[in-house]
């Protein structure tokens, strides 16, 4: 325990962190809870069945029986009033009205703006035509595959790591520094011959310890619960996590460089994290934003991190193919760190 000041400060930081149950939970436990909650809510539920109503009347039972043969269809016979209500409420996607007199047309009643209604129409029509004796000239065999890393939870987990690292840099490091300034601890440290850079660097050193643990815990958990797999190199994923945490730490340091009290820090941190949580594709893809915004969104550090990590984790891409996001991350890390150290206030 007799290293230099940098080592002593880093060890002190790690000790304090481990002695704070709240911080431990928010850093390690919380992302796991989100993984479980969203992983379950947005799980793939297999092929969905089409809810079809057949209107009461002559021939209704025959039609219903024909349709019920298809495993993709759930069919009920209802009176006209109830059928209309159900269609309006979206409980059924399509109503079949069998002809009152033989030879008159079948009526399919549906809302074409609902994508599942069109699929249901095709399915119902095929069933009824075949039931009436239509034969298909081509023979067909279906082969189904599930693309790797294509489920929502596979896509979600890398984004959650980004969120976790950003939160660590902000609420862990930045908030801590402002708190120390408010309590005059920074002033006390500034009165010693401690190298000031050592204090700031100690946050990075402790990050070198925590980030790998965060990566390991999150991905191990996601693997055990949802079978999420890192398709690319785990080392590349770890390297990305460290680079990401470095550029988030720079942002954190910038927030912390001047704020005199925790209220100001709180506001600044929310100002920076909330837009990135929305824009940078943590919970939903940022491709939903207009094309004109895309170049700006891609320049955000969180977007760059999520983009690169998803390519490595979900698509098995090499880290070296991620030149643009890597450059964005390094750029943010350098600019924010340099600026923050320049304007940092000790008292």
């Amino acid at each position, binding site marked *: *325990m*007799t*290293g*230099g*000041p940098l080592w*002593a*400060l880093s060890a*002190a930081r790690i*000790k*304090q962190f481990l*002695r*704070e149950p709240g911080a431990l939970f928010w850093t390690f436990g919380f992302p796991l809870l989100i993984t479980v909650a969203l992983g379950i809510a947005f799980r793939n539920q297999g092929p969905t069945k089409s809810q079809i109503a057949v209107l009461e009347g002559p021939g209704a039972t025959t039609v219903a029986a024909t349709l019920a043969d298809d495993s993709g269809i759930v069919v009920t016979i209802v009176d006209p009033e109830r059928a209309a209500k159900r269609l309006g409420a979206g409980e059924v996607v399509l109503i079949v009205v069998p002809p009152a007199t033989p030879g008159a047309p079948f009526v399919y009643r549906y809302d074409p703006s609902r994508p599942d209604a069109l699929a249901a129409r095709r399915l119902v029509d095929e069933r009824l035509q075949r039931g009436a004796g239509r034969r298909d000239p081509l023979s067909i065999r279906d082969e189904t595959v599930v693309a790797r890393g294509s489920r929502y939870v596979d896509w979600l987990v890398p984004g959650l790591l980004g969120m976790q690292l950003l939160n660590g840099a902000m609420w862990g490091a930045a908030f801590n520094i402002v708190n120390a300034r408010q*309590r*005059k*601890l920074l*002033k*006390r440290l*500034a*009165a*010693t*011959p*401690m190298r000031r850079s050592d204090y700031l660097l100690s946050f990075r050193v402790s990050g070198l310890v925590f980030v790998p643990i965060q990566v390991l815990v999150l991905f191990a958990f996601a693997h055990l619960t949802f079978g999420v797999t890192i398709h690319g190199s785990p080392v590349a994923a770890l390297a990305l996590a460290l680079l990401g945490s470095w550029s988030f730490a720079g942002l954190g340091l910038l927030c912390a460089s001047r704020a005199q009290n925790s209220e100001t820090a709180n506001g600044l941190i929310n100002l920076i994290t909330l837009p990135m949580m929305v824009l940078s594709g943590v919970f939903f893809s940022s491709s939903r934003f207009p094309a004109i915004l895309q170049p700006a969104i891609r320049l955000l550090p969180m977007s760059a991190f999520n983009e690169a990590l998803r390519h490595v984790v979900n698509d098995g891409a090499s880290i070296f193919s991620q030149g643009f996001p890597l450059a964005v991350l390094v750029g943010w890390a350098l600019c924010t760190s340099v600026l923050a150290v320049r304007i940092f206030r*000790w*008292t």
Partner: protein
Amino acid sequence: MDAAIRIEGLVKRYGDVVAVDGLDLEVARGECFGLLGPNGAGKTTTVEILEGLLAPTGGTVEVLGRRWAREPLELRARIGVALQETKLFDRLTVEETLRLFRTFYAGRAALSVETLLEEMQLGEKRATWVMKLSGGQRQRLAVALGLIGDPEVLFLDEPTTGLDPQSRRALWDTIAALRARGKTVVLTTHYMDEAERLCDRVAIVDHGKRIALGTPAELIDQSGGQHLVELSTDPALPAEAFAGLQGLRAIRVQGDGFVLSIDEPHVALPALIARLGERGVRPTRLVSRTATLDDVFLALTGRTLRED
């Protein structure tokens, strides 16, 4: 004179507030120097400028013959600091905190953690988290951190505020021992007995200005004598009743009675008793005591130190 500290025309303004208003001071090496003054007098501001933590608005400051702007690193290694209110790392233990700070003074003859734990009577609390210390224990830890680099100049801002009498005495012994080893100590305090006991010289500041400077004895003497008698009588007497009393130097009202400054108690006291007898009044309170810096402050400003 080889000055440890030299302050010339020091001014510190916060917007409209003038915290320090043209202060001149010189502290010799090996001296224990006290800054006295009521709340808001500018003591902490002055000390923090000396510690290199605040930039002055005007004037010059030299510590150990050096300027903060030029040689901050060297100066920080050679001074020790206990701020008026120090919050440390909540979840580090006393011992861990001391060991951490000790690494900052590597290469200097830093004091050992064991010595400091013993000196500041923190041995029992070595494994306690800082957040779980009492106010006085925290204060002792703050002083221990000031001592850890074995500094040439030690700044203590109200070091004994909040300490119990025993810890206060122990800290006084520590400071006296430092002085005996030739260290310079600058301390601020509201306690007059502390300044009288520890300080070679004191400066009394008020509204950022120096209003008196000297040894405690000199200041007491200047303000009207060593010996004081506090007197209340039944029925009450007017001040004129004491006119011409042998050895009386001054008289002032205090509460429902008077404080009399006298020259020679063995002469003045019998004369005073005789005067009361002539007037046929009974003393309800009659206390003879030596003057303190409180009396000095009162004489200088018309206020007592603790009120304001």
